[in-house]
């Protein structure tokens, strides 16, 4: 330890600078920070940056697809763009945004002053950061990866993709994956060891519960991906034959390994968002969440089932009826704990006083959009339907209803909900409404019609298509919707940039909220809490503000 004393780590001494980089030590304070709030904010900015990049990529793709037989992009560029779009949005937008909110708010919500391992926390962030830039370095190193985000073998072999893109895909995702695993270890220890006195597991905010479950999911799912990536690098660089059928390898092995990671990954990107909604709905309905135990229990059920459903991505690979039926049963089953949560949130709103803040608007829109994505998801668990619709535009529609209508709506809702805490300023609710309607309308225009395109026989990942009746019109509608979403996202980024300086002062508790993060200043000081209020229920701050109507008294005053 004595060596470390010579190293001066410029950690902030004055109050933290909110979202601005002008602190007492400037940029270096951010780069060298081990404070969970600053690391959380950096995760979130990273996600915003890659959201813009991934968005531009897909807008180019949508321009190419706007009309039949288009020559705007050549197929080579098209393949790189859609591959990078998917990889970016999943690994470098949704994931870092989720980890950003978790890193920032898990310690605050459990009454802790930092994560259990602050330096590991910084390490995790920088792994993700450099993982993302390593992936993008492929563009200047000779070509981006071009085999899709799930990068099937043997198309991912050197023989079929000889640019270094896929090597960068492997190394970038490996690096980011190390960060993700390290962060999850950190969350587990933080949540299990650093909760404030009185906060038993049954009194944890649901967001914290979901992060805890999620961290175990990450620990179990990422090894499959990391192993597959290493095997693929060996194939490409050292001529191993894991996935190369002509050398005795198996093309399907990649799919098994990838989806053994990939399907839990879908839940990794949605469970934390369920956590965000389980904070937003109660606060803006003025009621406790309906069925706290049920939400936790179904979260755990999802996490366990998530490892037994991957073959529904492979129903059309010829594994036979027995295998397909087994995985159809498990995939149908996982739909229940996932879908039923919708009714938990509806019941939370039922009988409440609903305040339509922008955060709540996104939560309400989520109920409808995610139901569409969830139901189309269930249709893929039914083998005959999957046989018709897998790998068509119907899947593209489905997965965007889940990733955008589910994950992204939740992250935006979280942004509007927590921005005041992180910056001390409100996001403009009026402009926020404009953004909400633009984004929701654009989103449905883009993806609703894609269900029909899939049913009409349009396969996914085609750089152009013949002028079959209806195809041109539907694709044009889809592309215009995409443009609308692009405009909306620019508006959001503009709001984020301007509001952090000029937004209305937020105060400590602008939403009359329930959980501990709202008891401290906005933004919190370097040390989050000097004292933490007593925790006797899942809504300690509400108990504190309304001592005559506390949850713990109502529930029979059982103060274990």
């Amino acid at each position, binding site marked *: 330890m004595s060596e470390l004393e010579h190293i001066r780590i410029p950690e902030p001494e004055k109050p933290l600078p909110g979202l601005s980089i002008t602190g007492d030590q400037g940029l270096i304070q951010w780069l060298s920070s081990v404070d969970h709030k600053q690391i959380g904010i950096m995760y979130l900015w990273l996600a915003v940056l890659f959201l813009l990049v991934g968005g531009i990529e897909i807008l180019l793709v949508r321009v190419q697809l706007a009309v039949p037989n288009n020559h705007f992009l*050549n*197929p080579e560029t098209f*393949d790189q763009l859609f591959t990078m779009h998917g990889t970016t949005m999943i690994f470098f937008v949704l994931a870092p945004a989720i980890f950003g909110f978790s890193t920032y708010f898990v310690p605050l919500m459990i009454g802790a002053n930092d994560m259990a391992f602050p330096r590991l926390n910084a390490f995790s962030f920088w792994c993700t950061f450099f993982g993302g830039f390593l992936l993008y370095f492929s563009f200047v190193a000779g070509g981006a990866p071009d085999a*899709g985000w799930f990068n*099937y*073998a*043997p*198309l991912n072999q050197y023989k*079929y993709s000889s640019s270094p893109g896929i090597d960068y895909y492997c190394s970038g995702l490996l690096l980011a994956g190390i960060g993700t695993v390290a962060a999850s270890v950190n969350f587990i220890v933080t949540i299990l060891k650093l909760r404030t006195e009185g906060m038993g597991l049954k009194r944890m905010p649901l967001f914290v519960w979901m992060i805890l479950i999620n961290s175990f999911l990450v620990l179990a799912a990422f090894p499959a991906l990391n192993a597959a990536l290493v095997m693929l690098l060996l194939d490409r660089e050292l001529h191993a034959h894991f996935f190369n*059928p*002509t050398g005795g390898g198996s*093309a*399907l092995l990649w799919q098994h390994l990838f989806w053994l990671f990939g399907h839990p990954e879908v839940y990794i990107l949605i469970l934390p968002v369920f956590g965000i909604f389980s904070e937003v709905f109660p606060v803006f*309905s003025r*009621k*406790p969440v*309906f*069925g706290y135990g*049920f939400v936790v229990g179904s979260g755990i059920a999802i996490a366990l089932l998530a490892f037994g459903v991957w073959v529904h991505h492979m129903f*059309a*690979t*010829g594994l036979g*009826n027995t295998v397909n039926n087994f995985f*159809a049963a498990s995939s*149908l*089953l996982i*739909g*229940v704990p996932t879908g*039923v949560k919708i009714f938990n949130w*509806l*019941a939370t*709103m039922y*009988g409440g006083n*609903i305040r*339509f803040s922008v955060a709540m608007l996104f939560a309400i829109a989520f109920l*409808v959009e995610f*139901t569409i994505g969830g139901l*189309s998801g*269930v*249709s893929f668990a039914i*083998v*005959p*339907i999957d*046989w*018709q619709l*897998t*790998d*068509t535009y119907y899947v593209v529609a489905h997965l965007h209803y889940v990733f955008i209508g589910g994950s992204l709506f939740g992250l935006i809702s979280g942004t509007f909900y927590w921005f005041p805490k992180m910056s001390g300023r409100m996001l403009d609710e009026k402009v926020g409404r404009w953004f909400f309607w633009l984004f929701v309308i654009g989103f449905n225009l883009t993806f609703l*019609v894609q269900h029909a395109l899939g*049913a*009409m*026989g349009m396969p996914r990942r*085609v750089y*152009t*298509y013949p002028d*079959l*009746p*209806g195809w041109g*019109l539907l694709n044009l509608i889809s592309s215009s919707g995409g443009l609308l979403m692009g405009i909306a996202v620019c508006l959001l980024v503009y709001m984020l940039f301007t509001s952090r300086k000029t937004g209305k002062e937020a105060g400590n508790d602008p939403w009359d909220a329930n959980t501990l993060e709202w008891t401290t200043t906005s933004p919190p000081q370097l040390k989050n809490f000097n004292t933490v209020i007593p925790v006797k229920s899942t809504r300690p701050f509400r108990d504190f503000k309304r001592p005559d*109507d506390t949850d713990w008294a109502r529930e029979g005053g059982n103060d274990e």
Partner: protein
Amino acid sequence: MILAGLLDAERPSIFNTASPEAEKIGAVGNGFLIAATAMFLLVAFLTVYICVRYRAKVGSPEPKQTSGNRKVEMTMVGVPLLMIIFFFFWSMKTMSAVLPPRPAHAVPDIIITGHQYWWQADYPAGKFSTANEIHLPVGRKLLVELRGADVIHDWWVPALGEKMDMIPGTSNYLWMTITKPGTYLGSCSEFCGEQHAWMRITVIAQQPEAYQRWLAGQAAAGQLPADTMAARGAALFMHASCSSCHSVRGTTAIGTNGPDLTHFAGRQTMLTGMLKVSNENIYRWLLDPQKVKPGAHMPRFIFPRDSLLALTAYLSSLK
């Protein structure tokens, strides 16, 4: 227009079924569509109703703090659970009917192999191989074997209902009973590289007699060149590199990397459904393949114009 696109009998759509397999699959799909629509309408109605009924009004007091209700929670789990059990058994029953076990040593009626970026069709009965336009007889339960030559491709004709990957190193099988003669469009549905978009599928289903005639015609060797121009083209075809990748049965061209061209001009489309077969399109393709279909494995041979014309004449004579 969209509805027309979905229901028009001549267009690819999962709602225009042309085989009992596709009909069974479609029935599950329609059943699920109804259940899912009901579920969606329920959620949408509840969302709107609750939002309107329970919106915050000025001065309204803090609502009653209810945090759960066992009965409601049981119903929330019970009803969807019953629904998925129902669909699970329907799915299982359908799949046993659509994909029954294959008798040992059954000889497939056709072997279709996906290549980057074309389809090879082998007919064990006629002992010949052709490409891209796949002729099948109606009214008979066909055993189809699917293979991948290089990367994974995927067989999908919406009207016939069944989607199946073509994986290098293994064979997959489908049972297919086409009921109506006609042309059915489909496409490769697993991303397979740059020209995945132009791996369109054309299945031509024929009455048994017409199919037999077609089989007999295809089994015959390629026609000899009709005129001097075509004869010059034939000679070029054999001596330039064409014959090392393409076959024309009855000649010295026995390459197997590219599509069999024995009866090339008898097809309606070329380049796997990309262009109509015409002298102009053949010429354009031979002039610069990478400009017409970038990423295809046909290299550019820098032929003088008269050689191109001769090759075009030869190819268009291969009826």
